C-alpha cells in the first residue's frame, strides 16, 4: 500500500504550484513555486468558505491562483507521447480541455485537507540559461514522513510554467501516459476523448 500513501499528496503538488493572475515574467521558477504555494496556503487558512468545502469558491481559487501557472498544452502533449502528433488540431484542443477539466475536478475535492502542513523549498540547482528545470520541495505534516514534491517547469513567453508534478517519485504525466495509451490502443484518439468526456460528466453527476 506504500504507493497509495503518496497519491493524495499529488493534490498538494497541484495546489501549491499555482500562480497569481499577475504575470511575473522574470520571476525565477523556484521563487514562483514558493510564492504561489504560500499564497494558496494563506488563502486556505484565512477563508472559512474554503475550509467548509464550498465547491464554487474552491473552483475559483484553483482557476485564478493555480491554473495560470500550468502549461496544459504541454502536459497533455507529454501525456499523449507520440500519439500527440497523430491527433488533429481539433482533437488536440478537445483533449487539452477535457484533461484540464479532469485534473481540476480531481484536485478541487482535496484542496482544503492540507491547511495544516508546511512546505520546505530546496535550493534550485540549474544554470541561469536553462529553459527547463525541476523545482524540489518537501511537504511536512505533523507525525508523518516528509513527502517530496518536484515540479517540472519550462520557460515560456508568459513566464515559467509547470508541466509535470512528481510526488514521491510518481510523475503525473507518466501515470497518465499509460492510461492514455491504453485508451488510444483500444479506441483511437476519439476513444480517449470520449472516455475523458464521460469521466468528466460522471464527476459532475457525483
Amino acid at each position, binding site marked *: *500500500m*506504500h*504507493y*497509495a*500513501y*503518496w*497519491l*493524495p499528496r*499529488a*493534490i498538494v503538488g497541484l495546489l501549491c504550484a499555482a500562480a497569481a493572475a499577475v504575470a511575473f515574467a522574470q520571476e525565477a521558477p523556484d521563487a514562483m513555486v514558493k510564492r504561489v504555494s504560500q499564497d494558496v496556503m494563506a488563502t486556505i487558512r484565512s477563508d472559512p468558505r474554503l475550509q467548509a468545502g464550498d465547491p464554487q469558491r474552491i473552483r475559483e481559487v484553483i482557476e485564478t491562483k493555480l491554473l495560470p501557472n500550468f502549461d496544459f498544452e504541454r502536459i497533455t502533449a507529454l501525456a499523449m*507521447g*507520440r500519439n500527440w502528433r497523430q491527433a488533429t488540431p481539433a482533437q488536440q484542443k478537445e483533449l487539452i480541455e477535457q484533461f484540464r477539466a*479532469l*485534473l481540476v*475536478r*480531481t484536485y478541487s*475535492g*482535496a484542496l482544503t*485537507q492540507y491547511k495544516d502542513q508546511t512546505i520546505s523549498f530546496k535550493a534550485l540547482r540549474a544554470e541561469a540559461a536553462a529553459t527547463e528545470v525541476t523545482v524540489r520541495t518537501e511537504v511536512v505534516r505533523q*507525525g508523518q*514522513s516528509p513527502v*517530496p514534491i518536484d515540479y517540472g517547469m519550462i520557460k515560456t513567453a508568459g513566464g515559467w510554467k509547470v508541466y509535470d508534478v512528481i510526488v*514521491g*517519485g*510518481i*510523475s503525473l504525466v*507518466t*501515470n497518465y*501516459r*499509460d*492510461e*492514455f*495509451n*491504453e*485508451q488510444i490502443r483500444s479506441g483511437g484518439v476519439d476513444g480517449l476523448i470520449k*472516455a*475523458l468526456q464521460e*469521466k468528466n460528466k460522471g*464527476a459532475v453527476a457525483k
Partner: protein
Amino acid sequence: MTTRAHTVVALGIAVLLSACASTPGRPYDPFEASNRVMYAINDPLDRYFAKPIAQAWVDYMPDVVQMAVRNYVNNIDDLFSGVNGLLQGKLDKAGNDFGRVLINSGFGLAGLIDIASDAGIPRGNEDFGQTFGYWGIPQGPYLFIPLWGPTTVRDGTGSIMRLVWSPTTEIPDVAVRNVIYGLGAIDLRAGALEATSLIEQASLDPYTFVRRSYLQRREYQVYDGKPPPEKDED
C-alpha cells in the same frame, strides 16, 4: 509456523494462477489478464470489507491506540530498514534505523511509543525489495494480490521475507499474534484511505493507474529518489 506456510502458499497460488493466464502485452505485466481478474475480485472485498473496517478504525478508535499500532508496525519496519541498509552498504542510514529500534523498543514500550522521532532521528525506508533492486535484480512480473495490493515477484518475495522474519512471529501466544497481525493490516489500509477515493476520481482505468504509480514509486525508492530518466515506451 502455519501462518508462514499459508502466506507462502497463498502467494504461490496467485503466481501460478497468473502464469496460466499469461498474455502478450506489456513486458512488465505479462499476467495482465489474470491480474485484472484479481483487481476485480479485490474491488468488492475492499469496498465492503477492508475499507469500512479501516474507516471505522480511523473514526472511532482513540488516537492513542491508532498511534500505538502504527508505531509498533513502524518499529519493525525500522528494524528491517536497518538490515536492508546494511545489505546495501548504507551504514549511516542503517545506524539511524538500529538506533531508532533500540530506543523505541527499550524506552518506548516495545515500540508502541516513537520516542526516537521526538528525538529527531529520521526514519529510513529500506526493505528487501529495494535491496534486491540495488543488487540489480529486476522487478519481474507485476502482480496484483487481492487485499494486499500491487506488488511484483521481486517485491512480493521481499514482503514475504519481512512477514516470515518479523519478531512478531516469535510471540508464543497465537491469539495475541493474530490480533497484532489484524491490527497491523487495518493500520495499513487506514493509511491509504484518502488515496483510493483519489484514484477513482483521477483515473480512466484504475488498474493502469495503480500499476504505473506502484512501479514508479518503487523505482524511485530503489534509487533513493534519483531514478534514471524513464524511456518512452510504446
